[in-house]
């Protein structure tokens, strides 16, 4: 009886040991598997992480470039606009001063020649000297004396507001030509602006 119990205990122990060994092996194998899986996952994630990192850096760089362009572009434009306004202001002041000087200039001497040239140009453009001439009150005398050279022309009793020069009109009123100094300045202004701006150091 006692011997039988001992034998049974021994075989039970063997079985338990066997199961324990088997379980240990399974656990160790599974641990090994898990370890290699985790190594693999880690290796994979390193590549993914590096890719992701590169993407984040590239996106960041793009965004920074975009912001740089926005900021630099915006401030460049703002500075340029301020310069434009400053130059325009200076050009306007030059014009005002020049116009003031022309309107106060002496009407004697070469001025009569200028009026004759203006009348010549005007009658040529209209193709007739049968015209009515308009001028300002200051220039009336000079114009009146010059008109003797233009047969058929007459000086209007009306005066016009201008710095100087003449405005002519065909006698039927169908054609007009403005050859006042104001009109000349208007026509030349875009060219003169460039000259004045270059004096202020504005390059083309």
């Amino acid at each position: 009886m006692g011997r039988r119990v001992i034998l049974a205990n021994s075989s039970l122990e063997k079985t338990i040991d066997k199961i324990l060994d088997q379980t240990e092996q399974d656990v160790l194998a599974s641990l090994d598997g898990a370890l290699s899986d985790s190594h693999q996952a880690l290796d994979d994630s390193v590549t993914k992480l590096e890719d992701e990192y590169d993407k984040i850096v590239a996106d960041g760089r793009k965004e920074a470039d975009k912001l740089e362009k926005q900021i630099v572009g915006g401030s460049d434009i703002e500075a340029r606009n301020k310069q434009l306004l400053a130059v325009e202001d200076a050009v306007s002041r030059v014009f005002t001063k020049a116009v003031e000087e022309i309107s106060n200039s002496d009407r004697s001497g070469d001025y009569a020649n200028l009026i004759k040239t203006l009348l010549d140009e005007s009658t040529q453009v209209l193709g007739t000297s049968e015209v009515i001439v308009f001028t300002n009150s200051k220039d009336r005398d000079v114009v009146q004396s010059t008109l003797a050279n233009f047969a058929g022309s007459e000086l209007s009793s009306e005066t016009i507001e201008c710095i100087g020069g003449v405005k002519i009109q065909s006698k039927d009123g169908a054609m007009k030509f403005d050859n006042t100094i104001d009109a000349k300045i208007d026509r030349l202004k875009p060219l003169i602006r460039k000259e004045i701006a270059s004096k202020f150091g504005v390059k083309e």
Partner: protein
Amino acid sequence: MTTEGGVQYSKIAEIKGPLVVVDDVENAAFDELVEVETKDGERRLGKVLEVGNGKAIVQVFEGTTGLSISGTNAKFVGKVMEMPVSKEVLGRVFDGLGRPKDGLPDPIADQFIDINGEPMNPEQREYPKDFIQTGVSVIDGLITLVRGQKLPIFSGSGMSHNLLAAQIARQASVVGTDDDFAVVFAAIGVQYSEAEYFRKSLEESGALKRSVLFLNTADDPAIERIITPRVALTVAEYLAFELGMHVLVILTDMTNYAEALREISAAREEVPGRKGYPGYLYTDLSTLYERAGKLNGKKGSVTQVPILSMPSDDITHPIPDLTGYITEGQIVVGRDLFRQGVYPPINILMSLSRLMKDGIGEGSTRDDHSEIANQVYDAYSRAQEVRALAGIVGKAGLTEIDLKYMDVGDVFEKEFLSQATDENRTIEETLAILWKIVSKLPRNEITKIKDKFVDQYYQGE
């Protein structure tokens, strides 16, 4: 620029639509600039359309509303319409006639140039072959734009062509060179909100610095629209051929230009052509489109992207039809893709850049560009066929390879075609996506690409 004054005539015989007929006119010239002065002293600009028998027909750009036969004067200025140009025009905003619209003074002009432009000597034209990167994958990858090319965008009303135009204007650049690049943007008859969007979009992205904007809004007189593309192209030609810049000109919407042309033609009682457009619509459009190009011995180039909205999405309408004869390909915006919410909704199967083959490849983009683009065209075309088939037999009736092509179609639309409006993709990124799409197919389906490229870039299987 002439500094002589002009004769003012006061005998107005007739005012008809946008036209004024002036009587007893001597020495007027075709295309001569005319200043029309109203009774109240308001001045409007116009140009001579016809002269003869002592009469001159003047087209008034700002319209004839408020003009009357008595009290209106027409001054023939003795020169054609000119645009003052200098490098200073960059960063400026002008109206449709080239007058400042940004509250700043007129630019200090370096030259005054006739807005009708000088015809390019065909013998001096250089074949366009350099790539322009727009940052929009579908254009750079499959419908590549080349410096000096004219490539129109055919769209329809309400579609996202203006978003695309603004995105191209913001992002476009020349790669692999230090040459200066500029964008001339002409908005023709657009809504005020659209004009503001264009202006803000360029301003906020910092791209305004290298751009010139011409804005003709829908409430501006229609006749001004005749001038807007011409002043824009004049500035572009100056920047390109005098200052050596590569200039991209975006003209939107050319349909509004053609409508204005029709209005004048109707007022002149000319015999109408198709849909009432004048018979010379083709010739007139060519005077604009042919101003794109490169010249031998000149550093710069003028590239044009005219945008037109096709009435009723009809590609056979005279405007897209005649435009297509003149330009070098077309980019077609698709209604179906637009409805699906795809941006930019470009239908690649109807689109084509005829000069693409010369502007891509080794030294321009990448040596595999042409072949990968062909393969993707082929695959997407097949995907469309499979989708049609699936509509009849159902997805269950498709073979495994059919399903792969269907997948290619989806990936193409979701990952390649779809792009955020502020997403600027480099050509390398674009080509990488194209390879990703092709890699969805088994290797034996890749028949249009050399093995060496497949070995290098294919990521499937």
